[in-house]
């Protein structure tokens, strides 16, 4: 600490303004670590396990990018951010990318000057209520006390929903998901509302998940995806195409199990280009030829990541739904690797 303080003081004293900011890619490579912003804890998406290791769907994206850029999936510094801190942390350069189930909206993209590099989960805002309340529709929630996570699009959607349906409610703002849990469980709120995936993840952590139902209404579109700072297109490309590589790999049937075989060469030129045995896609990004292979080696393709973290066989138990590959009727679609 003293050290960094002194360094800081020296910077302030000597290295006046005018330090040319190198690109994020160079910064990350020089640092040897990727700083990745995640939530403070949402089981299945990003949460430290009992050993303090970060696990989850969003975390896997961070690790894939780290593997692609640095060749080491563990070279990630996970920075927990709240709804309040996430955008400043990204804008100020404290983190290199934000993978924190953040909704892609016009104003965030244009006004806050961020670049969304894709969508890794198509979501929508839902409501969870205790089953014994007997509520079957969100329109029956007149006069209910609703717990909302602040700093998200959810509180705006919620205000709009209740306003358009002309029913009243009592909002209880909560800073983080973990603080909302006891409030909801002990009955201080009747309803908990956030993204449907978040509801499922929260419910999975409950003692008796079966006692709680998620109402059928989905009141908003919430495309969640990783984002980077506006203006550093090279870095944006890397994050975007790492995500696309995970998606394409699923589409092409490349899994962590068969990848090493496929690295030897296949008949499918797109697989070859993806894995770097053919073409110079990696070099175009300024990375190694096998960047995508490294990213895939971490925890497999998009489908595998989905299944291990939030899929139907996990406690969270989300079905693919909108997040199935486009061939299976979902929205998950990657531009071609060509």
């Amino acid at each position, binding site marked *: *600490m*003293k*050290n*960094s*303080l*002194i360094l*800081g003081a*020296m*910077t*302030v004293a000597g*290295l*006046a*303004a005018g*330090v*040319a*900011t*190198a690109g994020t890619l160079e910064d990350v490579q020089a640092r040897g670590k990727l700083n990745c912003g995640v939530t*403070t*804890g949402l*089981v299945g998406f990003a*949460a*430290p396990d*009992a050993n*303090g290791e970060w696990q989850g769907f969003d975390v896997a994206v961070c690790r894939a990018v780290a593997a692609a850029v640095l060749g080491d999936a563990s070279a990630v*510094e996970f*920075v*927990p*951010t*709240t709804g*309040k*801190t996430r955008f*400043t942390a990204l804008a*100020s*350069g*404290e983190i290199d990318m934000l993978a924190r189930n953040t909704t892609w909206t016009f104003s965030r993209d244009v006004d806050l000057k961020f670049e969304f590099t894709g969508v890794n989960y198509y979501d929508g805002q839902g409501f969870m209520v205790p089953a014994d309340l007997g509520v079957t529709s969100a329109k029956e929630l007149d006069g209910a006390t609703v717990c909302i996570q602040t700093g998200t699009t959810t509180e705006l959607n919620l205000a709009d929903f209740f306003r358009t349906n002309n029913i009243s409610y009592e909002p209880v703002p909560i*800073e*983080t*998901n*973990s*603080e909302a*849990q*006891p409030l909801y*469980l002990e009955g201080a709120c009747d309803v908990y509302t956030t993204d449907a995936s978040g509801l499922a993840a929260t419910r*999975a*952590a*409950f*003692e008796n998940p079966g006692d709680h139902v998620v109402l059928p209404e989905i009141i908003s579109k919430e495309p969640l995806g990783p984002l980077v700072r506006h203006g550093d297109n090279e870095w944006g490309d890397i994050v975007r195409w790492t995500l696309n590589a995970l998606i394409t790999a699923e589409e092409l049937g490349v899994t962590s199990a068969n990848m090493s075989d496929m690295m030897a060469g296949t008949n499918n030129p797109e697989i070859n280009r993806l894995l770097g045995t053919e073409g110079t896609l990696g070099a175009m990004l300024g990375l190694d030829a096998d960047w995508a292979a490294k990213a895939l080696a971490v925890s497999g393709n998009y489908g595998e990541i989905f299944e291990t973290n939030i899929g139907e066989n996990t406690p969270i138990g989300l079905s693919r739904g909108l997040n199935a590959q486009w061939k299976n009727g979902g929205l998950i679609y990657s531009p071609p690797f060509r």
Partner: protein
Amino acid sequence: MTDQHQVAYVRTEMLPEQAPPSSQQGVFKWVRENLFPDVVNSIMTVLALLIIYYLLSGFMPWLFGGVWTADSIRDCREILDAAGREVGGCFAVLTERWNQMLFGFTYPTDQYWRPFTAFLLLPFAVTGLMFMGLIAKAFRILAIVQLCMAALIVVGAMAQGSGLGMAVTPAILAVLAFAISTLAASGTPIVRYLILMTALYPFVAFWLIWGGSILSPLFVMIGLIIGYLVFKRGEAFGFAAGVALGLVATVIVWIIGGQIAGLAPDFLAFEAVRSRDMGGFMLNFILGTVCVSLSLPIGIVLALGRQSDMPIIKIICVVFIEFVRGVPLITLLFVANVVLNYFLPPGTNFDLILRVIIMITLFSSAYIAEVIRGGLAALPTGQYEAADSLGLDYAQATRLIILPQALKISIPGIVNVSVGLFKDTTLVSVISMFDLVGMIRGPILASTEWNGVYWELWGAAILLFFPVCYGISQYSQWLERQLDTSHR
């Protein structure tokens, strides 16, 4: 005379003293005078007894009927049910998450002994300064405390089946404390060495907690020493010149040292731990000690500036102090969290803990400045005039005459500010840092195993904070009495 009063019915010898009536002595008297002196007080006593009974009757079964080993809250409840107990705390959460509450969840588990040692060494660094006249006694108490600590760890380790090694450090330190105590008691002038220990402590603690090569803290220290020596030489040309020369020398040594340390990053190195991985009660402790010690010099400068007769400097100091004291700490933490980065040069990146340290230091320096200003104001004008009449210039007078006395008066106030600041370090949990409160509210209460365990966790938080704060504030009251030389 006497024979005139020789009357038959007057006694000539004294009766033996009789014991006072039972209502006027012993326990009975005490109870009557202290508990039931009149009707109102009797009612209050009864009420108080009822309240105490009510509280204890709820609390005791909960405390003593608690479950100390279980995997989750459901486990706990099953064990309680099986034992047929209505109430009982689920203290298993403490046994399981104790280390996380103390060190956060990312500090390497096998390195816990390092911050622990740094923590145990802290009293050695400060006791010499805090109990100037009573070193022998203070260190004897310290030895006992360390022994108790060791014993506690042994008991804990036996219960858990691991962690016995942690008891070694306090045991060694207990011996050391006892040795110091004996030396001091035998009249050896030991204070000089104790102050050396104080000066050495920050570097040792830094090395222990953050790890990395010993070279970096070593060179920082060497730089400061050389800077001081140069300052001593340069003082001949005036105070300001001395300071400037000293600073230059220090910076040169740091730059050279930085190069050398960069060459040998593994020389006598512990596993490096990043500040981001600090958490739990340790984080509160680090923030508290680091910020208070950093803010002391700044506070002194600000206080002197505010008392100065140079209007511009005075205005700068007053504006700074009043501004910082006028806003809540939480807004300053917001600044650290979301604003400060915009004011730093592009490309530099201070991590959150460093920004928080900067803001808390600024915060506490304003409060400490006000305390010291009180000390300065309390000095009789005669002291200033006497210094002037000796021909001392401002720097000399301040350093040799004014500050030593003013600081002595201000110590209790400074200690009080420190306690307040230590308590305020819990606010960092609001900006998503995992200090003790943050750990409890975040990872522990949100985990599937332990959601629903509230009172055990908050009770533990109180138990961790209370002894520290209470101890320090008792110390400051003791000090106040020691320093109170007025004859009442």
